[in-house]
């Protein structure tokens, strides 16, 4: 009995220790640092202040926050509009092909998004493949400047993050009980009504999980604007990176990260609620 208790105690304590030391403690430190003042000798110093949070609403920084949210939201929306029908069709493909088709989504999911971003540069640059194709086809007569614009950043985000939208939605569509859809049809609902009133609510956890996995990284992936957008401060991620590495204003950078974390917390809450709502609708 004593030996049995030992295994349990060791494994539980090990993971608890690790998570407290490397997840909880750093989070608390970021929160603390966001409430301190920037120091010259040390990186942070007393007194406690809310100044860092007030600065976020300064027009200079607020612009970055709003443009970042806008870009991330737009990327999430496009990923959802492409990813949902795609995941839905994928889940409804005959099992014979489905496995390999799914694997073809999983591979870009795991591939370094830096490598994929670099591949996008080759396509988008002035003498790149896209321009050459368009010129050859006679659609344009002058090469378009796409690389180093906001549009390129947007394309890069969608390209990098699309698999993160598809996989959670696929998982929830696959779990969908087709009898529920048949029941809705039998009871006289149109195809559209079945989709809106049955399919969408039941796959809501997948939609929200996918949106989180796209929206949150899209706010932070600083190397995409760095490489595709010509090194402008476009995303909150670039702002945070600059505060920590060039401006050396750690408290302000921490405050910006806390805001990002709050956005995550709100989204997690919505996700949790939707999972519970879906469970209630499922037949026991």
């Amino acid at each position, binding site marked *: 009995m004593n*030996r*049995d208790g030992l*295994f*349990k105690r060791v*494994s*539980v304590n*090990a*993971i*608890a220790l*690790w*998570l407290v030391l*490397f*997840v909880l403690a*750093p*989070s608390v*430190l*970021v929160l603390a*640092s966001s409430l301190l003042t920037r120091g010259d000798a040390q990186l942070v110093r007393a007194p406690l202040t809310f100044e860092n949070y007030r600065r976020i609403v300064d027009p200079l920084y607020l612009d970055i926050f709003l443009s970042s949210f806008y870009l991330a939201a737009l990327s999430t929306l496009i990923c959802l509009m*492409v990813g949902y*029908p*795609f995941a839905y*069709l*994928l889940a409804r493909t005959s099992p014979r092909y489905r496995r390999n088709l799914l*694997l*073809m*989504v*999983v*591979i*870009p999911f*795991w*591939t*370094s998004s*830096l*490598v*994929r971003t*670099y*591949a996008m*540069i*080759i396509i988008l*640059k002035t003498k790149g*493949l896209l321009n050459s194709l368009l010129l050859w086809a006679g659609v344009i007569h002058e090469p378009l400047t796409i690389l180093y614009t906001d549009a390129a950043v947007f394309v890069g985000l969608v390209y990098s993050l*699309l*698999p993160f939208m598809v996989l959670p939605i696929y998982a929830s569509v696959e779990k969908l009980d087709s009898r529920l859809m048949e029941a809705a049809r039998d009871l006289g609902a149109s195809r559209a009504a079945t989709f809106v009133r049955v399919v969408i609510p039941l796959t809501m956890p997948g939609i929200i999980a996918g949106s989180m996995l796209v929206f*949150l*990284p899209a*706010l*932070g*992936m600083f190397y995409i604007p760095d*490489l595709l957008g010509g090194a402008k401060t476009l995303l909150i*991620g670039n702002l*945070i*990176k600059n505060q*920590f590495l060039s401006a050396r204003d*750690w408290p302000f*950078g*921490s405050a910006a*990260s806390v805001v*990002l*974390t709050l956005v*995550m917390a709100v989204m997690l809450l919505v996700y949790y609620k939707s999972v519970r709502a879906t469970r209630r609708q499922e037949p026991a």
Partner: protein
Amino acid sequence: MNRVFKFSFMSVVYSFLYLPMIVLIVYSFNNSTYSLGWKGVTLSWYNELFSDFSLWEVALNSLTVAGISATFATALGSMSAVAFYRYSFRGKDFLYGLIYILIMAPEIVMGISFLILFVSLNIPLGFFTLLLAHITFCLPFVVVTVYSRMTGFDRNIIEAAKDLGASEFECFRLVILPLLMPGVVAGWLLSFTLSMDDVIISFFVTGPEFEILPLKIYSLVRMGVKPEINALCTILFGFTLAVVMIAQMLLKEKK
């Protein structure tokens, strides 16, 4: 739904996902430095890459960090998954919550919080800090992979082992672990690729004297497109491809 529409829609999405990578791979063999035109097949970019010794060192650094952190994360993660599945204990929901946060937290937030942690603990940035950070962000992937494998097998097997006199540890080592093996190996492989590919977190937690491959690529790419980088990215992509395929095969095998 219309089959033609379905087929073309899916093809367009797959092309969007794959075309840039295919172009990258094809051009890594193109015998021309700048032009888009095809000038014949060459391996010279790979040759140049392989004769660059500083790059070898950087690649070795990456492999070392990935190997050690994947192994450590897999050991700790598998043990935790078993503990989460089998035991109830105080603070379980809280630990679940921390794992959720780890999965969902934007990488940049994780990166700077590690930076603040290491600086306040006075640990110099480099190999060791990189290792601690990589173990941490790999951990939840192992826990999730192994845990989902556990939910698939019969609880009675464990009961039988216990009835036949196995201790908790023997039960773990002789019964649970062999059954979990495919999940454990898949978790290791996925951690390994995650660690090999990470840019954002590593960016904050490594020092100038310990360079790793993704950060090296990042600084090279900032200077522009070069055929050597095409070759390097192709190798890294091929590597990920192989690892993910093996991991998927292991995970599928049981279903």
